[in-house]
């Protein structure tokens, strides 16, 4: 082994440039692998911290005594119990366990038994508990958690193995380059008595020495790259979505390096290096000493005669086409990785753009009663929930200068009596709407009249009423509106008008009194009729009335404004996106009057943040694939040129000019990039087309309850809108733009060895093989 190690050391020193290239390739491969493992560890750690932040223990038990806690502490599975005082005199005991409890409910039962905890709700002092499933899962404390983690690990390892194989190519090619130049020397060594085993040992020893530098370097580089990626992803603001305060973000969202995981990455890298070195050694000894000494560059057994390059660039193109396919497997893998990289870079970004447009678009374009069309959906909380208060609130909000596009409605639930005036009637929702909402509802269907005419119309409009219902009940509908109140003991009922002693009060249970009052609403017209003879879904029949009707009805039928089952909602948009935080502050100071029910603007911001984070992560992944693809391409091109050193020289001897030779290698480089870009373009178009169809498929099934159209129609409109913003042209342009640096890298990879070769005379170049 001594002589093999000596030779390996000498070769490394003698071929400084190649050794450096191999060390760099090993370092890149190991770095990418370690980076993946570090990011995976970090993701797990953050997830655990989030679960811990929700409930700082695996179980939380409410209202147990200190004696019970002490009894629980005796259980060997329990590591600690932390007691805190909650609201209303409640206590919370957070239980942390330290070993596999197999099944969480069994463990709860064990705790109950141990500390005599009574959880029966009929008991006078029932003990309540909560299970932090996420934390149990992340700490691998139940059988199910272990199973789930095994599945997650398996998926991650599949990804890691795929990456590892791609990286193996990088290392492999680096070894091949350095061994190729010494093939003749290996042949000579064999001819003077070195056994094939010894030759393999020389190359393997070389791998070992180079790994000693490359692997630790790669590990450190991986930690650094992982940290940079982590910081970049954090800069998108995604952490703030997971945790509600910056303090928590800084406490819980930390980059973590787990030595065991890092070791796995490094070991995989090291094993790959040794495999590559061994494989290269085995390839070297496949040749007889004479073959190695006198070897021609790549024996070609089969060629394809037709080529597009030949058609485009003549005989040079033909030659380039055949040269590129000498190492068919590598050519295909390089094309594939380059294609994936280009596709990922361009198409993924475009699909994300499209997703964002569709998400944002759907918010505005979906059904008219949807809850996320406006920036804010607010519930009116005033003590005097009269009609005027909605208008008053809108006026005040308008005056703040922050909001616009106000919509307001008051919703009352009720039923329509049967013809005989008895029994369960048809369910109905009566919407008293303002002009803003009126306009939105009739956004996609023809407006039957203006809002002003609607106010003077004196009749209700219905949606989705069955035809038979219309024929029978038009102009004669009587609604029974139900009102409900909390009857707080010892407190006055809000107004005399709403006195629960009212003879119509029919239900009294659990402090809620429901009073039924009758109102008559003649129906003017139905907007979308349903082709069914019976109509059984009570929630879906909608009566629309102008908001001015509400006040009149209040006086006429004695409706109160505080009905528990009623609903008041104001919707509005932000005038300027920049005022978002001011708006939140405004709601905070007016929270007695207004409660934010849905903050769609914030949701959209969050969606954008998540999309940005996904984009960033995808970009990092993309960079990794691109790096592998480019390093592979550089290796394959430079190896190809070095392998053909004597061949290129003999072509020059036969009269090939330098210009022709450069043209040849340019076309060879162009082929890699051209093929990848063409394939990537085809896939990008398919991907964008597929996304369109997928969106349509996803949303095409359900009906828009206002227009009666499939929701897919609305989505199609959005999607078509998105297509005009995010067109097919975008990924194509991006792909071809990204192909330019790949081509430049390939050219540099070709020109450098060519220039170096040209420093030698043609004779030396030919003799390098002879």
């Amino acid at each position: 082994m001594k002589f093999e190690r000596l030779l390996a050391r000498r070769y490394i020193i003698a071929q400084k440039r190649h050794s450096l290239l191999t060390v760099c390739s090993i370092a890149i491969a190991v770095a990418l692998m370690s980076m993946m493992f570090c990011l995976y560890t970090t993701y797990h750690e953050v997830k655990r911290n989030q679960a811990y932040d929700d409930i700082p223990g695996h179980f939380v038990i409410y209202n147990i005594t200190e004696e019970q806690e002490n009894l629980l502490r005796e259980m060997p599975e329990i590591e600690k119990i932390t007691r805190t005082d909650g609201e209303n005199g409640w206590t919370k005991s957070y239980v942390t366990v330290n070993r596999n409890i197999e099944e969480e409910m069994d463990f709860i039962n064990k705790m109950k038994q141990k500390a005599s905890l009574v959880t029966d709700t009929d008991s006078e002092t029932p003990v309540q508990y909560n299970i932090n499933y996420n934390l149990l899962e992340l700490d691998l404390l139940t059988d199910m958690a272990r199973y789930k983690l095994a599945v997650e690990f398996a998926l991650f390892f599949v990804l890691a193995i795929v990456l590892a194989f791609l990286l193996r190519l990088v290392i492999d090619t680096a070894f091949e380059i350095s061994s190729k130049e010494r093939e003749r020397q290996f042949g000579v060594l064999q001819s003077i008595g070195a056994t094939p085993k010894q030759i393999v040992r020389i190359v393997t020893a070389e791998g070992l020495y180079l790994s000693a530098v490359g692997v630790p370097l790669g590990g450190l580089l991986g930690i650094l790259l992982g940290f940079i990626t982590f910081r970049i992803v954090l800069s998108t603001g995604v952490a703030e979505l997971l945790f509600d305060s910056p303090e928590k973000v800084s406490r819980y969202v930390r980059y973590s390096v787990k030595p065991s995981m890092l070791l796995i990455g490094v070991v995989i890298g090291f094993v790959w290096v040794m495999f590559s070195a061994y494989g290269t050694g085995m390839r070297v000894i496949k040749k007889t000493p004479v073959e190695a000494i006198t070897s021609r560059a790549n024996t070609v057994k089969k060629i394809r005669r037709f080529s597009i390059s030949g058609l485009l660039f003549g005989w040079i193109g033909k030659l380039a086409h055949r040269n590129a396919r000498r190492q068919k497997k590598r050519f295909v893998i390089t094309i594939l990785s380059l294609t994936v990289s280009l596709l990922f870079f361009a198409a993924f970004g475009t699909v994300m753009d499209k997703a964002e447009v569709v998400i944002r678009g759907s918010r505005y374009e979906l059904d008219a009663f949807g809850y996320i069309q406006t920036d804010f959906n607010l519930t009116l909380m005033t003590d005097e929930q009269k009609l005027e208060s909605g208008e008053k609130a809108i006026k005040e909000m308008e005056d703040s200068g922050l909001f616009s596009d106000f919509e307001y409605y008051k919703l009352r639930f009720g039923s329509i009596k049967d013809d005989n005036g008895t029994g369960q009637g048809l369910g109905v929702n009566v919407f008293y709407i303002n002009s803003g909402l009126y306009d939105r509802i009739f956004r996609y269907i023809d407006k039957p009249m203006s809002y002003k005419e609607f106010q003077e119309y004196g009749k209700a409009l219905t949606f989705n009423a069955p035809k038979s219902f219309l024929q029978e009940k038009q102009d004669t509908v009587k609604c029974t509106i139900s009102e409900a109140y909390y009857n707080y003991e010892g407190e006055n009922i809000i107004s005399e008008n709403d006195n629960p002693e009212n003879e119509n009060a029919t239900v009294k249970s659990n402090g809620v009194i429901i009073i039924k009052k009758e109102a008559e609403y003649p129906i003017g017209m139905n907007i979308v009729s349903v082709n069914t003879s019976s109509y059984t879904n009570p929630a879906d029949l909608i009566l629309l009335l102008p908001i001015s009707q509400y006040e009149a009805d209040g006086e006429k039928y004695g409706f109160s404004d505080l009905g528990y089952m009623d609903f008041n909602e104001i919707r509005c948009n932000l005038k300027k996106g920049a005022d978002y935080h001011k708006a939140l502050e405004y709601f905070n100071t007016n929270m007695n009057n207004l409660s934010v029910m849905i903050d769609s603007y914030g949701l959209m911001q969050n969606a954008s943040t998540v999309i940005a984070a996904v984009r960033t992560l995808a970009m990092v992944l993309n960079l990794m694939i691109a790096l592998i693809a480019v390093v592979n391409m550089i290796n394959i091109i430079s190896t190809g040129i070095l392998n053909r050193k004597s061949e290129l020289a003999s072509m020059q001897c036969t009269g090939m000019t330098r210009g022709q030779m450069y043209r040849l290698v340019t076309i060879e480089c162009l082929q890699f990039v051209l093929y990848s870009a063409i394939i990537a373009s085809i896939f990008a178009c398919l991907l964008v087309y597929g996304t369109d169809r997928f969106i349509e498929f996803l949303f095409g099934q359900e009906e828009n309850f206002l227009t009666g159209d499939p929701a897919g129609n609305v989505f199609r409109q959005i999607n078509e809108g998105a297509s005009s913003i995010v067109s097919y042209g975008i990924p194509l342009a991006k792909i071809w733009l990204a192909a330019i640096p790949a081509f430049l890298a390939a050219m540099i990879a070709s020109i450098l060895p060519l220039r170096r070769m040209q420093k030698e005379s043609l004779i030396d170049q030919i003799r390098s093989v002879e």
Partner: protein
Amino acid sequence: MEFLTVEHISKQYGKGETQVNALDDVSFTIPKGQMAAIIGPSGSGKSTLLHILGGVDRPTSGKVYLDGQDVFAQNNKNLAIFRRRQVGLIYQFYNLIPVLSAVENITLPVIMDGRKPDREYLSRLLELLNLSDRKDHLPSQLSGGQQQRVSIGRALFTSPSIILADEPTGNLDSKNSAEIVNLLRNSNREFKQTMIIITHDDSIALQCDRIITIADGKITNDTMNTQA
């Protein structure tokens, strides 16, 4: 009429103590259509001389005139074109392009020159080389003798003014060697091409019109062979 004139050619490799004089003030002339053999021991400078004659390597000093043209007065591009059109090189190890078929290898210099290969001449040449039935084979599918014939075909196809062969039979068995020498001899006679062959084989040298002996980078003997 002298076709090739070599004037005081010297070629040195290395510097100082490690300097090697591969050729030392070599001068000779060769008339058109002559077939000359260069013989000499290993390291005597034969191959260096041949490469200089073919414009593949540049001399340290001295001049080479081919058909009155100063070979090394040309720039690299013109030198490449000169090699393509005026010189046919044959190597011991053939140096064929592995991805090209026999016929493509033969026609490569003409194609490189942007010309269309003369089909009639090509089929005549293939017949002469006895390669008609192997013309679409790749070098790896040919025997050593066949590969060398392809290499000769490549050298002959441009109808160069001079053919330079560096131990063309060095890698072949005696039967194949005889075939190759006959081929070169016939080609020399049929196409009236000037030919210089480097060889260690006396039997080959004896088939040439002239035998030049080189030792230590100098011409030590230059005799006309009347037996050829």
